[in-house]
């Protein structure tokens, strides 16, 4: 008797869940159809030249490259610790600050106005300084804010991360003040070149190429080195990895070093691209990169790259394609996130989250 009741209830629940799913999917499809319709009508009405779309796409790719470097940090840490490091944007901001100080140092030394090789060397050292600044911050964060909470419920390190984010922002505000710092570009990075009607800034090209190279390097480290293998093992199962003789703490620190280095590089490159950095300039890019990581499937390395490039493109092209003012670009970016998650809750390239992780 009881068993029949239970089975009939669960049947009803299952049927309701199925109905809800179809309603949600139906609404999503209708939304998508409206979107496509809007894009087509606006595209016909506005008649922008092709070069316009190409330059918007280039802007998007550059933006996406930066997002990707930061998003990888979220994804790496999530893959291993199953926590969102909400202070990651601030790790990037501190890298950018270290970079601007290194830049001032080399400018004072006269390197920035020297011969080309000197300038290139200085730029590389500035990038290295930025990455180092981020690495120190990232490792300290892990040691102080996350490691003591490793056994705690999942929400606890999350709160700690948000606290760390605010702590870092306002410490920088306190120490360096509220005025933005300027990245003064050397003449080498100033300007760009033209392809037909499309203008390509040098910094944009450098950012895109360098972020691709860094992503390749990361891929090789994770897939081809022993430490990378250890990282993958820890991501799979911490306990078993420890039993196999892997020093889990060391692997986690290494993960933080990798993700912070990428963020530091992103911070310095974004600094040279957009020329200013201030105490809160890591917050919004951090949020966007997190979105990109979720869009691509959090915990999945190629997913973070794809998600970030896609998000950058959507942000750059979206407003013109939909015929709405560019100030609403964030609405489009986050709407896309919602739509994608309705259809693929685990993100574009995300695997179905296993019982253990969920």
């Amino acid at each position, binding site marked *: 008797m009881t068993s029949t009741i239970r089975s009939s209830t669960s049947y009803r629940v299952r049927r309701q869940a199925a109905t809800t799913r179809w309603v949600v999917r139906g609404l999503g499809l209708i939304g998508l159809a409206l979107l496509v319709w809007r894009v087509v009508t606006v595209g016909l009405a506005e008649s922008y030249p092709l070069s316009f779309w190409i*330059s918007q796409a280039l802007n998007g790719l550059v933006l996406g490259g930066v997002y990707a470097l930061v998003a990888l940090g979220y994804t790496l840490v999530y893959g291993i610790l199953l926590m969102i490091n909400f202070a990651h944007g601030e790790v990037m901001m501190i890298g950018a600050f270290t970079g601007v100080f290194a830049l001032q140092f080399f400018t004072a030394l006269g390197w920035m106005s020297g011969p080309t090789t000197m300038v290139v060397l200085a730029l590389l050292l500035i990038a290295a300084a930025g990455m180092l600044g981020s690495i120190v911050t990232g490792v300290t964060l892990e040691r102080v804010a996350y490691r003591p909470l490793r056994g705690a419920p999942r929400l606890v390190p999350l709160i700690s991360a948000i606290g760390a984010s605010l702590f870092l922002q306002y410490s920088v505000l306190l120490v360096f003040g509220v005025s933005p710092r300027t990245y003064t570009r050397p003449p080498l990075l100033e300007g760009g070149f033209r392809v037909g009607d499309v203008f390509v800034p040098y910094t944009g090209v450098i950012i895109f190429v360098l972020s691709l190279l860094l992503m390749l390097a990361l891929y090789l480290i994770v897939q081809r080195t022993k430490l990378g293998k250890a990282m993958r093992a820890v991501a799979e199962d911490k306990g078993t990895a420890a039993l196999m003789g892997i020093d889990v703490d060391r692997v986690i620190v290494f993960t933080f070093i990798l993700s912070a280095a990428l963020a530091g590089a992103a911070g310095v490159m974004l600094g040279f*691209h957009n020329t200013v950095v201030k105490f809160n300039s890591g917050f919004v890019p951090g949020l966007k990169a997190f979105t990109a990581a979720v869009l691509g499937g959090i915990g999945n390395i190629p997913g973070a790259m794809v998600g970030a490039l896609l998000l950058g493109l959507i942000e750059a092209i979206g407003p013109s394609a939909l015929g709405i003012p560019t*100030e609403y670009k964030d609405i489009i970016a986050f709407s896309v996130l919602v739509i994608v998650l309705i259809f693929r809750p685990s993100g574009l390239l995300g695997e179905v989250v296993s019982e253990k992780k969920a």
Partner: protein
Amino acid sequence: MRNSRHFVLLVVLLLGLLAGCTAPAPATTEQQAPAAAPAAAQPAAAQPAGNQVVIAPGQPIRIGGSFALTGPIPDPGKDIRQAAEIAIDELNAAGGVEGFLFELVAEDGACSGDQGTVVGNKFAADPTIVAVTGGTCSGETIGLKPILLKARIPFVSPSATNPDVVSADCDVCNRVALSDALQGEVDADFVFNTLGLKKVAAMHDNSDYGKGLAEIFQNAFTKLGGEVSSFEGVQVGDTDFRAALAKIGANQPELVYFGGYSTEAALIAQQMRESAGLENAKFMSVDGAYTQQYLQAAGAAAEGTYMSFVAGDAQAEKLAAFTEAYVAKFGVEPSQLGPFHGQSHDSVIVIADAIKRTAQVDSAGNLVIDREALIKAIRATAGLEGITGTLTCDAMGECGAGGVQIFIVENGEFKQIAGFGLE
């Protein structure tokens, strides 16, 4: 172990509470009935009532200040605050009012409407605040406005230029800065007639100030017969404007006009050079961007860009004396930080002058300032000699003197090419 942790937590919490208790409570020396209807001032015997501030001997006359110390324009905000301090020093050196000295209660209005509201509530809740100088930004001041109006505390803003900062229904609202209604029109006239450009794009930062000014410019420019090919908004704090600029560039305007503050203005000037269709377009921005910080941040891209400013009718001698005192106290030239120091100084002296005309010493030796009388006295300001000229407040609360000046950047410096004071 568990218990000791709880104990530590408890101790920390208790310490926090203690710290909260020992935090300086406002050193009030008098009481007042803030809930009482201000119009029905019924002075009871020995008890101050209605909208009066009673200051005991030895206590200061407290003037609130809302300054944009954080937010998008921290340097100009700091300049305005320091200029107000210099004005207070001057007034005190001259003996204050009946032997009572002034004190500036500086708060951070952060150039935002939200924070303006917070500061406004703080001042409204403090019965010792006589009047307020500020806010720095228009949005911030529009946040302050309804609260101070309800609390019957008069304010004089040194730098909030949006037309809505003062209005016919607000008798506590005053400003020394000139209205953007003027600036936007002069700018449009300059671009259309002097530069001879017929097709421009207007941009703004979605602040009350920037958007308001861009709209005024757009209307004035269209009225003159010009074409505004795009009207695009960005966000304060954004650093990448390439998407918006690409959109604007598709229409090939001859000039981009930006209503906003220096950081965004500098970035737009820079990124315009990297946007198709805008490589040769001119750039013009407004008083919020008229700072050294703009020149520094934009670097080479600043060359040849235009800037307008709501200038006072600068009194060279007074300005020199003020600058000397300012440099002596703060070790920096005021113009290095921002453009509105003269207006800030003058906002304070407008308030002080009105206090001098209304304050009375009662039988107990207390200084009694009736805020209702003060509100009227500020509006009655006439012929007051300030750094920015002869100040006379009109019925709307516009007290400023001077006019709109237009500058071009040459060799990393602003050079005036048109407008007020240039014959």
